[in-house]
Each structure stands twice: as structure tokens, then as C-alpha cells.
């Protein structure tokens, strides 16, 4: 909402600086986002009197004028306008002045005659989009006077951000009321006198409201004999200052009252209204209607239409129709002033993407009793600016009359909620100043909310009002005691803290955390060969790249990788901990959300070339991270098994613990990796964070006594075919259950060149609980182990 300070002053005598008002409004909850100086561009333009006008000796269409601009010298100015004449008072841009269009006036010779300034048109001053000839200033303007002052142009216009609850502040009157309350100033009522003539409007037009929920009240006046033309300068300039384009006197009057009082109105050409009736009803499904912007709209049964006897003439509360709008030939005007159901208007405006000044206000609610004042004010202005005559009376219908909202405010409760020491008297005075009727009742104030304050429906709303005017910033700070219930002692297992532990591990393990969008593109998922059925599409996505909720972290991590590769960051160790989404008909939200820990490794294993070997990260790096994760969180070691197949990982390895699936590790399929610009293998893990958290939360850390006797170690080199996994051999050793065996680890792995087999060196640790083992004892156990191992597996020792 743009607020003209001059206009505001018609309602309340605020004489302070714009900045003072801006600060105060902001602290009242009406945030002033900017102070505009709409006419700053013409602040140096002065009035000049044309003393003489002579034809230019060298050019037929130019005149040479002697212009008095209040200075000691009369200026000679060459002017190309046909309408310039001696005796006129005109705007003059002097040498050195820069106009809003960027033109800087210089002393120049025009066809041999020196010109010391420029006589301006309205277009050159930024007052109009087009104009014919120079602008003429009203009588009484002195030569040399700044035209900004002579025309009472706005020095300051405040851009006020009005919250959705404060429809009453979408007008100069409403903001004047706030100003008057804040500064203790009187508030004037709008001028709404109208002189009536001739026949009764109600006899010309009948209003029908067959569907009372659409429109509680519809009122109309008729103005006969209006001459459609340009509205007066003062009105055009005022509209310009608050960002409204001037159209014609009748339309400008409706816009003027809209800005002044907040009531949208619509002017029809009465001659185009057929059947002598106006009816407000719902549109038919699929009905087509062309609004006055020339766009044909397809309507639904939820839209409200204004119809005459034979056709729709306006999309109620949103925009008028092309078939009945005021045009240059219009003479008689039907001026509509109605109130519409906010929800109906909002639905239509949103569906059509057509938010107008009118719909914006109707959605938020307008002052029903006040609409009569607005109608009269507008009819009077139309008569004044068009020469028309307002007919007697008002054609109207009321479906539901306004009823006053009666409330009660307990000042004691206001003090309790706000934490402020407000007096009863302050509460009474404030509410009265805001337009409420206030009477003292027992322990409370009986308050009747004014019709323009549709947001005041409960005691708490009144509490907000007294707090707002007193100043929320005066509320003292006091730290409360946070009482807790015994039953809340489970917070340590909260997802937030468990996730924090996973993240702390990842950071410590040398991974960098990324955060990707929760939505990706369907085409990303197609690339990853993700099934279609469980995907959750976004119904109204911003783009095709973000039209589906991600069912896995890999696509987002690869996008992060791609962004980095584009920046030349080729060696990456990334992780993300976030939710992934899958359809779930059983869920109240239609989705199952699962926590995932995703890891991506690609490029060189070590960031620094020296003193490190130059090697690329591989499976063992990724698996090592997974093993490290379980070990450092104190969880049992999981099993890693080749999976048969996976949509985007090859090879793919399943991670399981006691038969429970905990996720996958693997290499991103090369064609997928290449699509994300990877030149090297991309290793990716996705682990079930929910399962990890459950394991963490359930973990009990019990101490095991340290061994009392020394170990005996034996290395055992097993020669096995390539396809016999290391874990197979180790498990075979365990399954033999050698006496006193404590630990088996792979100590070395060697594949002789060209050999089909590899040498796996296992380090076995033996230790007895109750004595020191002797070499012969261990040798005996080891020998037995070897004979069974070579018998059960196709291996040699």
C-alpha cells in the first residue's frame, strides 16, 4: 500500500517528517518498507509566465518565447508546441535541470536561435504517458515558484506492508486512523455529500441476490450525463503518486475512492446493461467470459458473476467485463458498490492468477456499513469531474445485514498475557481511538468492534490492539522457569541428537557435509532406473528439475559432485544425512519418510600429492568408512555381501546386521556417473540412518575384563582361487572352532604375477583364559586346523 502524506493529511493533521511517521507505523505493526519521493525528478522545475510568443525566423513549427521565471532576466526559450501562447503559466526546466526521462537541459541554439530552457509537457514531467502540447499551470501560480510546491505534489509516499489481517489499512483513511491513534490527533470523516437529481435509481435498476452467501450487500447509484474524459490534474497526480495509472474521469474516481477509503467499486456503462436488473450468482461450469483486460476466462461453478437481464457483465469482485465497461461514448454510469464473500473472491482470483486491487481487498474483507459512504463519495466525485448528475436514491439489496461484533476485554488478562502494566483507562482510550465503542462492565470492558476491523473477533485480538499501541517493544524481558515432566526423560534418544552423532562421525572421518534439495527431477530418477510406482510427484513443481521427492540420496549427491567437478574440484569425499521419500498409502501424509546417510567418494584418495601415493579412492575406502562407522559408534561389525543387482550400483554390496538390511555400497554405474560428468569411478553408500539410530539408542556398553595371559600368534598363508572371498576363508577358520582362537585377521594379500590363485595370509591369535599357552599346544591346534581347512575348502596351505 502506497501512502501519500498529503492525502493522509486530509484526514489527520500530522505535520511531522515522513521518517517519523514511518518509524511509528512500523512499530505499530504496519511496516514501512520504503519512503519514496515520486516527484523528486522534477523538484527543480519552476513556473514561468510566457510574456511574448513569436514565430521562429527559420522554422514554421517553432516559437520563440520570452518567459519570466521570477529571476532578474527574462529567458528566451524556443518551444515546439503548437499550444504555447503569451499569458500562459507553464512549467519550465531551466539550464542544468535533469528531467525524469534523463534529459539534461543545456543552453543551445535551435535553428540559430539561442534557447535558455525548456517549456515542458506532462509527458516530459512524467505526469502522463502521452500529451499534446505543453502543460498549462493553474492560475495563481507565481513565476519562479517550484511547480512541485505550486501543485502540492507529494514529497513523500510511504510504502507500507500491510499484513493480511489489516484490510482496514489498505486505504488512506485506515492509515490516517492509525496515525491519529499513535500521535493523539483528531481524525476527520470522509466527505461523502452528494446532491441528488431526478428519478430514483431503484426504479431503473433492480438488484437481485439469489445466492446470499456470495454477496451480503449490493448497492448502486446512477449518474446521468457524464462526459467521459481526462480527470482533473490534482486527481491524476494523486493517483500517480500512489502508483495508479489514470484512465478516465469515471474510472479514476473509483480508483481514487478505492485508495482513499479502501472500498472497491465498479462503473458500468448503463446503456450496456440490459433488462434493468443486476443479479449476483454463480457461474456455470465451463462458462466463458471476457474480462475488461481482453482475456477470455473459463469459469467454474465456484466463481461469482454479476449479470444483467441477459448476460454476465463482471467477474464479481475481481474484474469487470469488456462488454459493459466505460468507454468514450458512455453517458450514463451505473456505479456498483458491493461487498463479496472473501473466500469466493480469493478462490477465483487465485485460480485465474488475477489479483486486482479490488480482489485483494475483497479477499481481506471490506467495511460493509462503510460501503455506503464510499458509494456516495465516489458518485459525488464522478458528478464533479464529469459534469453528470447523480440520480436520486440507491438501487440496493441486502442479503445479510451487518451485525456488530460485541466483545469483552478483561484488562487484567491483557496485563497477564502481555506482561505489561497497562491501566484500564489506557485500554479504554486506545480501543476508543481505534473506533471501538467501549463501555465499562464488571471486571471488564464491553467493546463493540467497528465494522472496518473484521480482525477483532475475540478478546485476544483486543489484547493485541492495546499491546500494539502501547508498544510491544516496551515489554520487559524475563526468563521463565521451564518446568519439565518426568515422562520427558527420553530426550537423549531424540532423532536430532542421534543424527548429530552420525554427522560428528562423518566429519571426523574426513567427509564434507552437503545439503541437497529434497526434490529432484523425474528424468534424474529415470537415469537411475528408479521404479515409477513409489515416486512421489510434487503437484505444482517450480520446475521439471524439482518435480519429484527423492527416494534416494544418490541423485542429489551426484548433483553436488557435478557442481564441484564443474568448479574443478575433482577429488571429493561428500556425505549427506537427510530424509528420503516413498509412497505409503497407510501413512496419514501418504508418504514414508526414512533417514539416510549417503556417502560419495570419487577421484584421488588423498587431497595432498605429497607425502601420499597418487591413487584413486576405491571400494576399500568406502567399505573402510562403513566399517569405521560401525566400530566407532560401538556397533557390531556388519556383514558385506555382493548383491545380485541394483538399479544404479555395480558392483553392489549389501550391508546387513543380524539379517537386517542396513543399506548398500557400490560403484555408480559408469553411464550414470558420466551423465554427472565424472571421469573417474564414483563410489557411493546409502545406509539406513533410522536403523543406525535404533541400534545406537539400544546400545548398551558393557565392559569386558582384560585378558590375564599372553597371546600366541601364528600366520597362515592360504592359497585360494580368486573367486574365494577373504571372508569365506576367515569364516571357514571360525567354523572349525579351533581351541583358544581369539582373533583372525587378514595380514597380507598377494597375487603372484600371472597366477590364477592368490595368497591370503591370515594372522591367528590364540589365547587361553586360564593359562599361558605353550608353542607345542598351539602348533597342535594349528595343524589340526590346517588339515580340516584344506579338506573343507579348495585351498592349499
Amino acid at each position, binding site marked *: 500500500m502506497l501512502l501519500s502524506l498529503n492525502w493522509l493529511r486530509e484526514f489527520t493533521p500530522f505535520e511531522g517528517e515522513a521518517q517519523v511517521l514511518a518509524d511509528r507505523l512500523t512499530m505499530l505493526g504496519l511496516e514501512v518498507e520504503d519512503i519514496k519521493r515520486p516527484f523528486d525528478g522534477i523538484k527543480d522545475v519552476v513556473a514561468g509566465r510566457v510574456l511574448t510568443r513569436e514565430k521562429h525566423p527559420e522554422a514554421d513549427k517553432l516559437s520563440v518565447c520570452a518567459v519570466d521565471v521570477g529571476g532578474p532576466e527574462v529567458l528566451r526559450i524556443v518551444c515546439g508546441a503548437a499550444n504555447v501562447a503569451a499569458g500562459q503559466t507553464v512549467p519550465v526546466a531551466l539550464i542544468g535541470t535533469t528531467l525524469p526521462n534523463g534529459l539534461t537541459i543545456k543552453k543551445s541554439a535551435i535553428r540559430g536561435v539561442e534557447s535558455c530552457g525548456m517549456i515542458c509537457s506532462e509527458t516530459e514531467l512524467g505526469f502522463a504517458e502521452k500529451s499534446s502540447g505543453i502543460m498549462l499551470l493553474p492560475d495563481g501560480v507565481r513565476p519562479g515558484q517550484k511547480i512541485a510546491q505550486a501543485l502540492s505534489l507529494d514529497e513523500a509516499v510511504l510504502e507500507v506492508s500491510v499484513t493480511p489481517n489489516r484490510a482496514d489499512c489498505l486505504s488512506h483513511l485506515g492509515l490516517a486512523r492509525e496515525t491519529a491513534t499513535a500521535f493523539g490527533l483528531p481524525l476527520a470523516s470522509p466527505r461523502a455529500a452528494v446532491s441528488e437529481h431526478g428519478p430514483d435509481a431503484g426504479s431503473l435498476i433492480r438488484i437481485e441476490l439469489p445466492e446470499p452467501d456470495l454477496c451480503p450487500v449490493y448497492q448502486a447509484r446512477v449518474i446521468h450525463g457524464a462526459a467521459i474524459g481526462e480527470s482533473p490534474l490534482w486527481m491524476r497526480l494523486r493517483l500517480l503518486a500512489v502508483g495508479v495509472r489514470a484512465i478516465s474521469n469515471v474510472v479514476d474516481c473509483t480508483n481514487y475512492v478505492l485508495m482513499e477509503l479502501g472500498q472497491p467499486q465498479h462503473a458500468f456503462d448503463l446503456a450496456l446493461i440490459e433488462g434493468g436488473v443486476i443479479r449476483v450468482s454463480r457461474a456455470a461450469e465451463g462458462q466463458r467470459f471476457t474480462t475488461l483486460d481482453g482475456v477470455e476466462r473459463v469459469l467454474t461453478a465456484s466463481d461469482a458473476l454479476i449479470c444483467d437481464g441477459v448476460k454476465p457483465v463482471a467477474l464479481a469482485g475481481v474484474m469487470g467485463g469488456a462488454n459493459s465497461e466505460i468507454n468514450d461514448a458512455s453517458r450514463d454510469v451505473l456505479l456498483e458498490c458491493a461487498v463479496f464473500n472473501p473466500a469466493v473472491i480469493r478462490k477465483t482470483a487465485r485460480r485465474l492468477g488475477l489479483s486486482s486491487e479490488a480482489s485483494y481487498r475483497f479477499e481481506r474483507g471490506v467495511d460493509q456499513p462503510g460501503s455506503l459512504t464510499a458509494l456516495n463519495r465516489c458518485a459525488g466525485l464522478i458528478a464533479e469531474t464529469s459534469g453528470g448528475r447523480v440520480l436520486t436514491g440507491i438501487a440496493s439489496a441486502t442479503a445479510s445485514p451487518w451485525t456488530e461484533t460485541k466483545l469483552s476485554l478483561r484488562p487484567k488478562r491483557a496485563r497477564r498475557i502481555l506482561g505489561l502494566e497497562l491501566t484500564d483507562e489506557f485500554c479504554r482510550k486506545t480501543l476508543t481511538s481505534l473506533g471501538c465503542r467501549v463501555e465499562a462492565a464488571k471486571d471488564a470492558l464491553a467493546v463493540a468492534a467497528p465494522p472496518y476491523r473484521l480482525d477483532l473477533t475475540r478478546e485476544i485480538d483486543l489484547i493485541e490492539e492495546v499491546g500494539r499501541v502501547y508498544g510491544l517493544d516496551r515489554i520487559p524481558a524475563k526468563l521463565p522457569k521451564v518446568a519439565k515432566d518426568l515422562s520427558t526423560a527420553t530426550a537423549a534418544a531424540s532423532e536430532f541428537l542421534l543424527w548429530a552423532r552420525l554427522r560428528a562421525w562423518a566429519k571426523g572421518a574426513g567427509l564434507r557435509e552437503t545439503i541437497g534439495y529434497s526434490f529432484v527431477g523425474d528424468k534424474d530418477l529415470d537415469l537411475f532406473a528408479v521404479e515409477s510406482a513409489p515416486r512421489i510427484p510434487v503437484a505444482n513443481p517450480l520446475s521439471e528439475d524439482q518435480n519429484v521427492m527423492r527416494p534416494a540420496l544418490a541423485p542429489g549427491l551426484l548433483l553436488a559432485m557435478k557442481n564441484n567437478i564443474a568448479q574443478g574440484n575433482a577429488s571429493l569425499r561428500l556425505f549427506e544425512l537427510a530424509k528420503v521419500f516413498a509412497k505409503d498409502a497407510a501413512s496419514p501424509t501418504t*508418504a514414508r519418510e526414512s533417514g539416510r546417510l549417503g556417502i560419495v567418494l570419487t577421484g584421488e584418495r588423498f587431497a595432498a600429492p605429497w607425502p601420499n601415493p597418487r591413487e584413486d579412492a576405491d571400494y576399500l575406502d568406502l567399505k573402510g568408512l562403513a566399517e569405521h562407522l560401525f566400530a566407532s559408534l560401538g556397533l557390531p561389525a556388519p556383514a558385506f555381501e555382493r548383491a545380485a543387482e541394483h538399479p544404479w550400483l555395480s558392483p553392489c554390496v549389501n550391508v546387513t546386521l543380524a539379517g537386517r538390511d542396513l543399506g548398500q555400497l557400490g560403484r555408480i554405474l559408469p553411464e550414470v556417473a558420466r551423465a554427472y560428468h565424472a571421469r573417474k569411478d564414483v563410489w557411493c553408500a546409502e545406509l539406513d540412518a533410522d536403523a543406525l539410530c535404533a541400534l545406537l539408542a539400544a546400545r548398551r556398553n558393557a565392559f569386558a575384563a582384560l585378558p590375564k595371559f599372553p597371546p600366541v600368534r601364528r600366520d597362515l598363508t592360504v592359497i585360494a582361487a580368486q573367486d574365494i572371498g577373504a571372508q569365506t576363508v576367515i569364516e571357514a577358520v571360525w567354523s572349525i572352532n579351533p581351541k583358544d582362537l581369539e582373533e583372525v585377521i587378514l595380514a597380507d594379500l598377494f597375487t603372484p604375477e600371472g597366477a590364477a590363485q592368490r595368497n591370503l595370509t591370515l594372522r591367528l591369535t590364540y589365547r587361553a583364559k586360564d593359562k599361558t599357552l605353550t608353542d607345542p599346544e598351539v602348533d597342535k591346534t594349528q595343524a589340526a586346523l590346517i588339515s580340516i581347512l584344506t579338506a573343507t575348502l579348495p585351498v592349499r596351505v
Partner: protein
Amino acid sequence: MSGGHTLATEIEGLVGECESLLGQASSFEALEALRVEFLGRKGRLAAVMSRLPGLEPEERRQAGAAANKVKDTLGALYLKRQDALARQAETAMLAAFDATLPGRAPAAGSLHPITIVTGEICTVFRELGFDVVTGPEIETDFYNFEALNFPPEHPARDMQDTLYITDATLLRTHTSPLQIRTLESTAPPVAAVAPGKVYRRDSDLTHSPMFHQIEGFLVDREVSMADLRGVLTYFLHAIFGRDTRVRFRPSFFPFTEPSAEADISCVICAGSGHAGTDTCRVCKGTGWVEILGCGMIDPNVLAAVNLDPEEYSGFAFGLGVERVAMLKYGIGDLRLFFENDVRFLAQFA
């Protein structure tokens, strides 16, 4: 007699020879070779001493005494030379030691700035006794809007342009649904903060379709706006420093009444409104920056979770984590948070 004397002389002669050779030994290997040559089991001293049994007792005693003395002397000379060599080696090592070579460092990890700031904020509230709660990102219209006092077709819904999944489900536009979810499951007193991702149908230089919020709320008997101000002041001082001024300005949110915006004195220009002679870019010269929205929980919201507004009151607040992070770290561009450029990520730990 002469034999014993000769032998003793011979033994003593080893000292000079060994000392001279030791002096020339410049490595531990050479030193060890000398030790073996002179003091080894088959060394020269042992060879001489092997002749002792053939001597007369007196001579043998003298020669034996000399041999022991020489053995001690040679041992001492050896150790002395060994020390010298060790010192030389140490000196050489220290001379060659380059403290400036790059270390053999494990890979450096980092946390995303959003994680760091979320953690710091939640820690402050945990200190104050608040729990941390989390909830679903795909929400029902009921939890995201209706229970929070956004009636259908209310213009307040325009304040949050929504990404929908179905007609009845959507990507949560704020973390405020956690107020409802928590109060549904937990009887007052309740104090909690709810961090998480939120979504809006908005994408430009200053808006991201996904960002992070932290909702906080406290419901108990006799909670007032002064308590709200106290908690927020404590929190803002903890995050931005004790000198930060906090301002309450009336605003509107459907789920709080009265509602306020909390502003803090600009962290860039310390509230002065200008940087040198220029107007401060961050606060645009006002000296204040918006930091969060807050208010007293609307009675309709309490009623939606079956709490009697006459008996209970509470406050709620919500803040954008990106905004806090931008102010805290001086990050000027919102998009950096989601591009995941490691040159950005590496700046936070």
C-alpha cells in the same frame, strides 16, 4: 717375566691402536666392526687373553689385571665414540629436519553451516530446558495450516506459497506443525524447539524452494509475552553476542496473537546503519535486521489441541536458519547453501 711383560705391553698397546681406529670410524657399522675386532668373543683382546693360561701366576695376574683394565678402557672408548657418533647423527638429523614439510594428514571433514548453526541454536535452547523434536516434511493440510488457524481460502495462506503433493498433503511450509504434533502427544508444561527443512514455492536470489527453520514453543500456566522476550533475548545474546539489542515490532501470524517480529541491532554495522560513509547494505541504513517471527500462541491453536486457553498460555517463535547463518558468517548469497561447492563447505567446521 718378559713374556708377562710383553703380553701386558701388547695388551696396553691395543688401547692406542683402538683409540686411533675408533677416531676414524664414522659410522655405526664401522664402530660395530671395531667393537667386534677388539672386544668381540673372537676379537683381539680375547685372542691376547687366551694366552693368559700359559703364563706364570704372577705374570698372569699382572697381565690379567692389565687386560681387564684395557677391556674397561676399550669399552669406555667405544661408548664414548658411540656417543659422539650418536650426537653427530642427532645433529645431522636436526640440521636436516624440515618442520615445514606438509603433514600426512587424514582427510578433513566438515559440517554444513546449516548444521552448525542449527546445532548452536538447539544447544542454547537445550540449556534453557527445551527439548528438540522433529517431524515429517510431507504434512497434512490440517497440521500445516488448519490446526494453526489458517482457515481454508484465508489470505494468510498467501503468505506461504505452498508446494502440494495432493489436495490434502503438502511439503510443510514451516516447522510450526511440530507445535500441534507435540502438544497433541504431550501435556503441558511443554517446551521444545523443532528444527528442520521447510518448503515454499518460491525461487529467486533471496528465496530458496527449500530452506531450514527452527520453531520453538513453550506452553504452561501463566506464560506471558515477557517470558517470550526473555527467552529470545537470552538466545539472541548467546548467538550474536551480549551487545545485541532486541526489538519487538507488532506483526501478524495466524497462529500467534499478539504476533511480533523480533529485530536485532544490525550485526554488520553494530546498529549504526552505516558502514563508513556508505549506508549499511544489510540493514539498509535502519540499524535493525529482522531475525524471527514470534508471538503468544493463538487461543484457536490451543483449542485445536484441546487445551483451555483460560488455563494455559504459551509462546511460539520461528526463525530461518539460513538467515542466521548469513548474518553470522557474512554470507551474501542464499544459493551457496545448496550448491555444495567444497570451497564453500570447507570454510565451516
